[in-house]
């Protein structure tokens, strides 16, 4: 089994790129791989807890919680990007880490595969 590092800058709403990233992570974890997910830019909003589930909106947090509980998935948001968007530490999803880009760099270096999903 290997390690996959996924990065994304995309917003949780307005594009489907984060949906792709989470579904890819889910499939990899289910196959026994480990996955690091790095979110920066507008993607950090996904790290806020208690997203409301509207019928016509993508809702990824249920899957994320299951992935975090698996022990083979880490989700880390860029702390500076989050702070710049008013996403406070005390409102961060349980299990989601906050770090600088050094974390992403280190994750990429020791991953078997790396993919950056989506654009701005």
């Amino acid at each position: 089994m290997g390690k996959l590092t996924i990065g994304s800058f995309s917003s949780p709403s307005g594009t489907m790129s984060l949906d792709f990233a989470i579904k890819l992570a889910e499939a990899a974890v289910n196959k026994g791989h480990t996955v690091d997910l790095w979110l920066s830019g507008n993607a950090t909003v996904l790290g806020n807890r208690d997203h409301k589930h509207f019928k016509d909106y993508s809702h990824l947090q249920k899957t994320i919680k299951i992935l975090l509980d698996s022990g083979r998935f880490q989700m880390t948001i860029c702390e500076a990007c989050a702070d710049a968007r008013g996403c406070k530490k005390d409102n961060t999803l349980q299990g989601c880490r906050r770090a600088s880009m050094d974390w992403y760099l280190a994750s990429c270096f020791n991953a078997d595969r790396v993919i950056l999903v989506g654009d701005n």
Partner: protein
Amino acid sequence: MKLCVFMSEYRSGYDIVKRLEAEKLGIVLVGNSVYHAASDNKAEHCMLPENAELYVLAEDLECRGIETAKLASEFRVVTYPDIVDLIFDEYEKSVWI
């Protein structure tokens, strides 16, 4: 190098994939780019590199109401677990355009 390219847009990306050189080139159509696989227009398929392996994500076809039976034969329909295998087993690098 064995390179896997994820295309997500319908109207852009050709200029990039046409210039890519790889020992093995795979193109995975996701999002709105799956419309390329649904097109009856052969010329549109030809805009993708001839030497590339072509894949299209089943879920993104389904949510756009595109039947897999109507796809051109050169496209292989894949699921998320299939994509994981492509990334780990068949290609060395993956990029998103």
